[in-house]
């Protein structure tokens, strides 16, 4: 059975014995075995579900007034009410959709633009590269938040998708820059040259040979952009640049702040939305860690086995290989 591998000369060792399908599957699932990534995915999953069904399962209409004005959490209102007696829990649940839609739309858009510009620039090189780099540099140097404010202010009744588009338009440049650098290094890799020498067309080289190798960076960039978009959107809503009538967590905070929630001691109005944002942001970051550790074999095994290592009293260190005498006789 000649199904073994040699990792002979590569410096990044590929784990041996990835031959059998079972092991391969296990390797794919490795990502899920990563506790951080798993936690992150669960968090995002919960919010995603809320985004879909939130408006239906919300206990009440987030716009419905009630006589319980500014009341703290109670059985009737789990997260209390605002100054008009609106139910805050419902606002958060209904608002999740706006946040998620904007975050992910902006993330996807920005990633697509970034990939298009960055990868093209990195691959074609020469004048085209300079032009595209200049373009992304321009977008990079233009101050982002003010730009968003200007653009968002320019569009009539800036709704969720407009905001997403604006965030994407202003937020793709950094990703493009990173991708360009990476593509530049991939472009000279032998397997790309080999594809060229084999007569592959440029677009095919880009999409089939280069892009898949950028997955990790793209994914990390995507996660980063989503975080950025969520925070931007919420900040925009908070400073009142975008519509504050569509519920999202930023709008809740806007109303809370406008109505002195903190000074009035209405923590239930201010805290939950902020914590939701933090939770979502952390979820995204954790997934990002997961991607990192999954893609970078160096980060992988210790990351996975940290607890096990502590149990065995092994401290992995550079330059001082741990010695455990398991089947020992001759220790001093």
């Amino acid at each position, binding site marked *: 059975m000649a199904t073994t591998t040699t990792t002979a000369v590569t410096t990044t060792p590929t784990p041996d014995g990835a031959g059998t399908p079972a092991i391969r599957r296990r390797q794919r699932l490795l990502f899920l075995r990563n506790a951080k990534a798993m936690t992150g995915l669960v968090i995002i999953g919960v919010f995603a579900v809320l985004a879909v069904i939130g408006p239906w399962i919300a206990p009440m209409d987030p716009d419905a007034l009630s006589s319980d004005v500014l009341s703290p959490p109670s059985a009737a209102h789990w997260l209390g009410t605002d100054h008009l007696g609106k139910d805050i829990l419902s606002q958060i649940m209904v608002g999740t959709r706006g946040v998620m839609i904007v975050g992910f739309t902006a993330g996807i858009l920005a990633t697509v633009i970034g990939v298009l510009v960055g990868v093209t620039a990195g691959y074609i090189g020469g004048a085209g590269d300079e032009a595209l780099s*200049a373009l992304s540099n321009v977008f990079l140097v233009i101050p982002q938040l003010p730009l968003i404010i200007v*653009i968002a202010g320019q569009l009539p009744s800036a709704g969720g998708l407009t905001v997403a588009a604006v965030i994407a338009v202003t937020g793709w440049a950094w990703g493009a820059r990173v991708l360009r650098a990476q593509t530049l290094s991939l472009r000279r890799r032998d397997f790309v040259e080999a594809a060229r020498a084999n007569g592959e067309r440029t677009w095919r080289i880009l999409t089939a040979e280069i892009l898949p190798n950028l997955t990790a960076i793209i994914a990390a960039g995507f996660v980063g952009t989503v975080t950025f978009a969520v925070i931007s959107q919420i900040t925009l809503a908070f*400073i009142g640049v975008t519509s504050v009538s569509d519920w999202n967590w930023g709008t809740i905070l806007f109303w809370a702040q406008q109505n002195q929630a903190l000074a009035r001691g209405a923590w239930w109005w201010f805290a939950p939305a902020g914590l939701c944002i933090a939770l979502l942001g952390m979820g995204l970051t954790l997934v990002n860690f997961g991607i*990192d550790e999954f893609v970078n074999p*160096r980060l992988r095994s210790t990351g996975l086995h940290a607890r096990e290592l502590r149990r065995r009293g092994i401290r992995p260190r550079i330059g001082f290989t741990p010695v455990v005498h398991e089947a020992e006789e001759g220790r001093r």
Partner: protein
Amino acid sequence: MRFVVRRGIFYLITAWAAVTINFVLPRLMPGDPVAALLAKSQGQIDSSAEDAIRLLFGLDQDASIWQQYVDYWGLLLHGNLGVSFMNFPTPVTEVIAQSLPWTVGLVGIATVISFTLGTLVGMGIGWRRGTWADGLLPATTFFSAVPYFWLGLIAIALFSVTLGWFPASGSYDRSMIPALTPEFAGSVIRYGTLPAFTIVLSSVSGWILGMRNMMVTVSSEDYVTVAQAKGLPERSVVVGYAARNAILPQMSSFTLALGFIVGGTLIMEMVFSYQGIGFLLYQAVGNHDYPLMQGCFLVITLAVLVANMAADVIYAVLDPRTRQEG
């Protein structure tokens, strides 16, 4: 040389494009400064004043946008950024000069602290990967994941309003006149502490993460193992060999971050009522103060461009490999 010239041309073109966008953007906004002024006053300024103000800003005669563009460049090349509408008739340069040092000072120091702290911590966890120190990461990411304003407002509610440890707003004691005295410096520090603290808190995790990942990558380089094999003291291995190389990409992000400082952190300035260019720009946008907007954009743009160039240079300085060619 050719390379330098090419980079130079590249930056010039970028600058030109950015300045042009900066010029066009405000003009794409609907509305005009006068309407904005009236909107802001909500009845405090009599509507009959509209024409007077229009006259004042010289908005009564229409020049074609192309003409305006040419004029703008003409003025720009003379270092004249025009007169702010909002702070009429103070020249834009003066208005900016009044805010910029504060932003640069506070955000700059906070960024430096954040970078230093983050890099040191990142160095530590990167080197001791797999120990308890790794647990620090998710904790720090919490602070970078919450929106800054939220953090800032809570910090104010907690440290200023409730505990009264720090002032809630301003750049220094308002009864003081800026001067180079220890009292004034003390006041600046006292007022800057809370904003700086929150900035550091919310940005440090990025540095930690970046440095940690680079440390992990660099630690597995042969030269680090060689340094260990040489029996060098741990400190010199970590600092001289691992961190010294890991910090290279970190430094270039840092340089870029320094460029972004000039853009200010609008939200910080808003929340802490700190005088700075971020809030100035925000106000200018709100008031359709085209000249001021353009001025701020220009300063910020140039700062980032310069930082970009500095990043090129810093890399060349820190990494001998890029210094020489042949």
